[in-house]
């Protein structure tokens, strides 16, 4: 029964990868420009507009190098064969850098920054939301809600700009960009860690502040609904301790949709970080994707997006597997 469920979910996962992977292949190629030609022209301009006689041949040879001279169906086939080998080829924009290497170099920064702050925002927000939805919470706490709303309503790039100005210009205490000080040799020592944390504070705070209200309001709404449920009333009639009613009856049930929300958000961590990373010049996946798209780098786009798709699909798969554990009403056997 359980095996059947896992297999079905796994099939779903494969289907997601297939559909998304196909789109991933097709969409960049819908652009009317040729990435190799574009990159060549860019390089030529940088070189001061020198005329090189055999540009056409160079482009052709690079196209052959990247396999872009093949018919589309052939490229598509090669794309999947390469994917199966986890080989995303070489970047056009960063030629001859390896796409996988580029992605792997950016990934830890994004996971560290956006992953950690997303979880923090969810935990902090849910905590406040639960507290606000509890009828016995002091009135004073309810003033937190409008505050959360204001912060959430401000787009976080504006919030980020404001914070950048306040903490790097007006009162320069924090670094304004990057993930670490280039002058410090990376090592596993305290100086490096402090440096990295310092660089993460501003972008991290921007992410948390802009999404904590969303988590808080969602949780508060669920708490209010749950508090009206009959099992809360029976729990009170049973003379249970408040702490138990709050944690085991109210929060435990109100938290269920938050878990789904968190899983989906973690899946999007990789891609949802574009704005914040560009704004704070953070060398993560978002920044990489931004570069890839602006230079129409087929292979880099494919590589980055494939990891995003994989991450989202994997998170949804994991949620599907753990959800029956946290909500017994959802069973492994149902589709």
């Amino acid at each position, binding site marked *: 029964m359980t095996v059947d469920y896992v297999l079905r979910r796994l099939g779903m996962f494969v289907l997601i990868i297939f559909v998304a992977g196909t789109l991933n292949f097709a969409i960049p190629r819908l652009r009317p420009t040729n990435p190799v030609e574009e990159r060549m022209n860019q390089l030529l301009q940088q070189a001061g507009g020198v005329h090189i006689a055999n540009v056409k041949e160079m482009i052709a040879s690079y196209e052959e190098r990247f396999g872009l001279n093949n018919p589309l169906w052939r490229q598509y086939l090669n794309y999947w064969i390469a994917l199966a080998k986890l080989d995303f080829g070489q970047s056009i924009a960063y030629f001859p850098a390896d796409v996988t290497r580029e992605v792997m170099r950016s990934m830890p920064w994004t996971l560290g920054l956006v992953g950690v702050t997303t979880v923090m925002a969810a935990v902090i927000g849910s905590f406040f939301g639960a507290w606000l939805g509890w009828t016995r919470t002091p009135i004073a706490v309810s003033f937190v809600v409008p505050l959360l709303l204001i912060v959430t309503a401000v787009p976080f790039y504006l919030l980020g700009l404001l914070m950048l100005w306040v903490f790097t210009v007006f009162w320069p205490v924090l670094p304004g960009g990057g993930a670490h000080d280039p002058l410090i040799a990376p090592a596993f020592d305290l100086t490096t860690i402090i440096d990295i944390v310092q660089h993460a504070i501003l972008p991290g705070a921007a992410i948390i502040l802009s999404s904590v209200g969303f988590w808080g309001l969602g949780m508060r709404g669920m708490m209010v609904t749950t508090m009206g*449920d*009959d*099992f809360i*009333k*029976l*729990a*009170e*009639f*049973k*003379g*249970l*301790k408040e702490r*138990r009613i709050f944690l*085991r*009856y109210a929060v*435990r*049930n109100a938290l*269920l949709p938050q878990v789904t929300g968190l899983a989906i958000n973690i899946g999007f961590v990789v891609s949802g970080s574009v704005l914040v990373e560009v704004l704070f010049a953070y060398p993560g996946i978002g920044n990489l994707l931004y570069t890839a798209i602006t230079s129409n780098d087929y292979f880099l786009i494919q590589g980055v997006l494939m990891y995003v798709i994989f991450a989202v699909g994997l998170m949804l798969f994991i949620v599907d597997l753990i959800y029956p554990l*946290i*909500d*017994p*009403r959802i069973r492994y056997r149902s589709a």
Partner: protein
Amino acid sequence: MTTATAVHSPLVVKDLKVYYYTRRGPVKAVDGVSFELHRGERLGLVGESGSGKSTIALALMMAHKEPARIEGGSIVLNGSNVLDDNSEQVRLRRLSEIAMVPQGALNSLNPVMRIRDQVIDGLKDHNVSMSDGEFANRVAELLDSVGLHRDVASRFPHELSGGMKQRVSIAIAISMNPSVIVADEPTSALDVVVQKQVVQTLRDVQERIGAAAIMIGHDMGLMAQFASRIGIMYGGKIVEIGPVSHIFNNPKHPYTRLLISSLPDTRSKRRLEGIPGLPPSLLRPPPGCIFHTRCPDAMDICSQEIPATREIDALRYAACHLYGDDDGKVVDL
């Protein structure tokens, strides 16, 4: 009532007043209700919607919420007034002295907890210390006593039928052998066959543990099956109270009479009669007897004076101006 009987009766309610404070003034949902529950006795409280029956149940559990406030009277449970308790004392009394069987709505149980844990957590929060094995035995014993298989302990609520869930609620209610069980429309949302079984179960366990029980509802048939005494509520007051047979066969208060005659009867083919008029506004109750606006026997005095409660015959009390000193002496219940 003397103090001596108060000590022996598990529950003595005197002149209880519960008002809901609204913007337009207090709504007198329960306005001067008195009754006494003897050991092992089963009382049914009957009345139409808004007559204050459920408010009484909440007040007995001290689980009424704003804007409801207990405005006066006393609820003496096992010899001491619940209204004098602090919130922790109230909490400890629930389940151990007075337990509630909730309305038969289908989500009275926490959907993410196994039945076993939902029985045990009540015990744990009342400082019952047992080993895990003893707890498991106690749960099995309780499930047995309400006619459920002991395997139910490891199930989740969504795996049970409505009747089974209500049996679990009963098992929880008797888990600490309370002296009073309050059942607020315990069979609503259940089908008719299951209703009878659940009421029978409730009656069986109540007799077994020797608790007094008070059942609230409007199904006269179920009441007759369950209760030994019935109180008829109207407009926040008990207008008549007495043994089941007296109430059904020889109702004294005009409202009771109309209520009984509105019941369908399988033996005679008479037309069903309703009670004309609408329930009174509890925000601005009519002066005098609260029923006089709908009463077929209303006299002048009914709109001027609130009728006193008289003992019409043994154990039967009614509050109506139709009865004078010849019919029974005025009592202070």
